[in-house]
């Protein structure tokens, strides 16, 4: 998929694909006239690029340009190789409901910590990112997690790039999403308008991982537009739980904390979720 950042028109982004010589999935994102935009999408779907380009040129709207002209420029840049195709931002949605999950971060190849985590009574064990790292036990960690209820998310320090960037799951009526940090917005496939981008930008960019409490009124106002009402993130090294309005924000720190292993437990209680942090002694030296 190509993501083109526009200039001078209402929608800030245009997303599209080129398959062979055919235009696919053209989408004007983030603003503008939805009705006309949807019509353009339908009319262009599957049209040869060579037939589409003349139709898009020469249309004026404002600022000396228009959505069709911007799309034309985007397609021409893509053909010339001046617009790189965006990588995927991977969102994995759990197919089943959970009633109890354990969440860690920054496992960094620590096999004893993972083995302690595997002993936790939970439907799923989620590592928000950096599950592998410079330690030598990476292969053992991946092998131990294989087939278990373990979900590894992608972190900036992970040695491979195949895990989901966002993981979303349901607990009762609550919708949760987990991610490592704002590094995801630096990836080429990131769009401000994609699923869970809002949650990420509000946590990371607006509130500084919830450390800037001065902007909590604004953060609270924006939560009305969230898809998730439980937001899990890592990066800061802190363990923290804050509820703003109807949204639970849970910061999960590294699993290794001195001589103990620490994780967050989310447990469904009726309609709500109870959040706690549990520690077990680190027995790796024994």
């Amino acid at each position, binding site marked *: 998929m190509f993501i083109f950042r526009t200039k001078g028109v209402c929608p800030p982004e245009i997303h599209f694909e080129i398959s062979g010589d055919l235009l696919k999935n053209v989408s004007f994102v983030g603003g503008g006239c939805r009705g006309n935009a949807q019509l353009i999408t339908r009319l262009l779907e599957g049209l040869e690029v060579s037939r589409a380009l003349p139709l898009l040129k020469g249309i004026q709207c404002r600022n000396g340009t228009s959505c069709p002209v911007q799309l034309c420029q985007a397609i021409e840049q893509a053909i010339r190789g001046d617009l790189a195709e965006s990588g995927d931002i991977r969102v994995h949605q759990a197919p089943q409901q959970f009633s109890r999950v354990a969440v860690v971060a920054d496992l960094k190849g620590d096999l004893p910590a993972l083995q302690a985590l595997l002993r936790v009574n939970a439907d799923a064990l989620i590592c928000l990112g950096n599950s592998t790292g410079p330690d030598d036990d990476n292969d053992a960690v991946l092998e131990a997690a294989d087939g278990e209820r373990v979900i590894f998310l992608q972190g900036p320090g992970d040695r491979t790039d195949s895990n989901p960037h966002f993981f979303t799951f349901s607990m009762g009526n609550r919708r949760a999403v987990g991610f490592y940090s704002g590094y995801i*917005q630096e990836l080429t496939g990131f769009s*401000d308008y994609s699923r869970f981008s809002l949650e990420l930008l509000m946590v990371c*960019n*607006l509130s500084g991982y919830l450390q800037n409490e001065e902007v909590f009124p604004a953060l609270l*106002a924006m939560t009305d537009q969230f898809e998730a009402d439980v937001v899990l993130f890592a990066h800061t090294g802190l363990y923290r739980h804050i509820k703003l309005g109807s949204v639970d924000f849970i910061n999960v720190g590294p699993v290794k904390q001195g001589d103990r292993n620490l994780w967050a437990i989310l447990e469904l209680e009726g309609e709500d979720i109870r959040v706690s942090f549990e520690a077990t002694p680190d027995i790796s030296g024994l």
Partner: protein
Amino acid sequence: MAESVKVLPQDIQEIIEVREWDMRTREGVKRFMELKAKSLPSIAISDELVFEAIIPMQEELIAAIRDRYAPNGE
């Protein structure tokens, strides 16, 4: 909030340039932080945060604009 700006009288429209920032975007959040805003909605006039967490009455907004309007040479 944007609508309250759009319905300002013509003589006010002629002396202002309106820019709306979307808080769902990186650019919008960056501008919010630059203005040191804390709440929504917010209105800044000439880079100064003037109204926060309220949608001002037309008269208030017009007065705030006029207070800060300095025609060329004055």
